[in-house]
């Protein structure tokens, strides 16, 4: 064979091979590979959340006894130290064993996805927007109105004896449009925490009872290296953001966010007085760093380091504040009702609740799991082992719980007074607008009256847009 001819044959063969390979590759890609690839990119109805990445995933092992494969229940919960369930937070051995037994008895396998709390809302937003959230049970915190369309109405599913043991007011933040979409599982109200040593040094014998007391004490307690008051004003939105703290004072002043027509009504004397109190506290001796703290932990660290004398905080603070490895004020913490404004004391609640998604294939089993989370023994372990108070009144009054969580009594008493968090479907947007205006006032760029008026205008526009 002519060498040139031979070379041509070889080159032709190679080209043909490449052409065929490319054709086969393209065919596989189009016919099989690409759809599979795209399907993998999307959410799958049968996917089990891995909880990988940053999420502190905890797959609770279940025996899966009984007949047939165990039914998978996927739960989205916050990571500890936020209120997390057995299998995520550190509960007692008895509670852990009870959790395993519950799974065996119910032929269920619970898989958790437990990212840090700040990631929860956005994770839900994305998953619900996809129309195919991978969870059966989802933790909520003030977002029930926003995601109500994705949640199962469970008012009729809650057993009567459980319902009777819960504060009726706990359902206010999980009820929207007349339907109940969740069960609150921890009584988490803001109350006052104070440093008893600072008080004693300053000759103060009891916690502040009124706004005037509070302002006076903050001023008296502030000295080099120590501030009378600390809070996190850095992030305006959400529960525990700048706007939500103002809502506490708003209720104490006798005001409210919305009228009967759902339009904002806070541009009034109580609204302005509430913000003026924040400005007065700033002037009297609030830690100047407060405006830069974007989370409650930032402010709590200042308090537990003994650099601030008072703050309002959630009940869970009590336990880490008594831990010598994280706190310098062990044995020096007092708690009390929030100081009363013109209309008495008031607070907001964390609205930590369990809900069931409409995507759940086992809503009844999901409800049983929620009932387990609210079981008396689990609630007791929740209070004693994790520091998050129970919501069941019988457990709250349990002597053992009150002995361990000595702030339970104060929180229970605080719950006898108003504690509305004013959650709506556009809560994040409303609190962002409101909180940003409050920040401007705190920085001296606006008066209290001007900031509240501007905030009211913005919130009105948001509510009108919602329709």
């Amino acid at each position, binding site marked *: 064979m002519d060498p040139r001819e031979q070379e041509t044959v070889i080159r032709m063969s190679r*080209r043909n091979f*490449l*052409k065929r390979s*490319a*054709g086969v*590759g*393209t065919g596989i*890609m*189009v016919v099989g590979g*690409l759809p599979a*690839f*795209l399907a993998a990119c999307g959410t799958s109805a049968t996917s089990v959340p891995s909880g990988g990445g940053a999420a502190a995933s905890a797959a609770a092992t279940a025996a899966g006894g009984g007949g047939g494969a165990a039914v998978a229940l996927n739960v989205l919960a916050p990571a500890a130290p936020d209120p997390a369930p057995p299998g995520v937070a550190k509960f007692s051995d008895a509670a852990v064993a009870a959790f395993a037994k519950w799974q065996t008895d119910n032929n269920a396998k619970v898989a958790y996805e437990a990212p840090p709390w700040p990631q929860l*809302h*956005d994770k839900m*937003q*994305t998953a*619900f*927007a*996809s*129309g195919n959230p991978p969870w059966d049970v989802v933790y909520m915190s003030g977002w029930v109105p*926003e*995601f*109500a*369309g*994705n949640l199962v109405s469970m008012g009729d599913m809650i057993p009567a004896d459980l319902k009777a043991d819960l504060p009726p007011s706990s359902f206010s933040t999980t009820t929207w449009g007349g339907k109940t979409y969740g069960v609150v599982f921890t009584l988490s109200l803001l109350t006052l925490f104070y440093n008893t040593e600072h008080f004693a040094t300053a000759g103060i014998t009891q916690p502040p009872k009124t706004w005037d007391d509070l302002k006076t004490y903050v001023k008296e307690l502030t000295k080099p290296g120590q501030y009378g008051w600390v809070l996190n*004003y*850095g*992030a*305006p*939105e959400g529960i525990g953001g700048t706007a939500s703290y103002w809502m506490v004072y708003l209720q104490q002043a006798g005001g409210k966010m919305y009228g009967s027509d759902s339009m904002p009504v806070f541009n009034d004397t109580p609204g302005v007085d509430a913000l003026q109190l924040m400005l007065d506290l700033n002037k009297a001796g609030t*830690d*100047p*760093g407060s*405006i*830069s703290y*974007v989370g409650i932990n*930032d402010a709590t*660290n*200042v308090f537990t*380091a003994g*650099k601030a004398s008072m703050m309002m905080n959630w009940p869970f603070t009590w336990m880490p504040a008594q831990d010598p490895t994280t706190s310098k004020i062990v044995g020096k913490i007092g708690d009390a009702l929030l100081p009363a404004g013109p209309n008495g004391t008031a607070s907001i609640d964390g609205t930590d609740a369990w809900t069931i998604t*409409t*995507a759940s294939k086992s809503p009844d089993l999901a409800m049983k799991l929620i009932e387990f989370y609210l079981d008396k023994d689990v609630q007791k372990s929740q209070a004693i082992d994790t520091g998050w108070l129970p919501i069941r009144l019988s457990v709250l009054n349990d002597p053992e719980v009150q002995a361990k969580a000595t702030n339970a009594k104060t929180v229970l008493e605080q719950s006898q007074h108003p504690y509305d968090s004013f959650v709506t*479907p*556009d809560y*994040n*947007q409303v609190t*962002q607008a409101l909180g*940003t205006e409050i*920040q*401007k006032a705190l*920085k001296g*760029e606006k008066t209290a009256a001007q900031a509240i008026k501007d905030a009211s205008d913005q919130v009105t526009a948001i509510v009108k847009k919602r329709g």
Partner: protein
Amino acid sequence: MSAQHGATWPLGRFRTSGYLGRRRRTGILLVLPALLVMLAVLAYPIVSSIVLSLQHVEPGGGKFSGRWVGLDNYINIGSDPAFGTALSNSIYFTAIEVVAVVGLGLAMAMLLNHPLGRSAFFRVILLIPWALAPVANAVIWKWIYNANYGILNFVLHQLGVVNQYVVWLGERQLALNSLLVADIWKSIPFIALLLLAGLQNVPPILYRAARLDGASAWQAFRFVTLPHMRTTILICVVLQSIWALKVFDLIYVLTKGGPADGTVLLNFLSYRQTFDFGDFGYGAALADILFLMMFVLALIYLRTFRPTPGARQAGT
């Protein structure tokens, strides 16, 4: 004649029989899988985002249903005060960051190019900020800037630079500048290495010639180094501009856009509208504007990289 050519090309070239035609068809078949993947992972999200920006999207109810609103989302952007703040913040942030990163990066590269600085040890040290995970970097800076415990306050106070601790993230401009410092610190290493590669391509003979001509160090830098580094510096400017516009982690961890929206940049604003407020259409419109800005910068980048006609001919 030209119209006829326009009608037959490129399809005509594709249909050409013979060796060249087969070669082209084979080539196209070979790159087709890659093109399909590119379309799926790049073009589809971009087109989808543009389509989303023309709708008012209600993500509730287990559905992702949108209502066509035309250009309403883009029109609303014009009257959104947060957009104005975010745009001016983004421009300020990008401009300062690019100047600082490229300037300091060039200085760093020159030090590393010096005979005393050529040890691999220095390059490893230099890379540490770049190698840090973005969120870890942000958390480190959060502690550095802490108003009560931050090491920055401690050091400045010990040195007598400040009388009392400064709330670095408490004032709008100060907070924005503090974020800038943190991001500049992280961005310098990569740019410095790029510039170092450029510096090492400057023929040493030019420096010798300059010295023989009596040029000072500054004159050698001005008339030898800079002209040869022009393209590299331009690439660094474009890349750093794109990266500066995309900053998110620092804002999310350190300030959440506060105080009073003082550190909101376009990327963060788009995120907030989309995921915090659930306004997917408006968030997509904001993201598309940011995309457009980056696209223009990318075009400049490609144009910078485009071979000159002479080089193209030499290549063929």
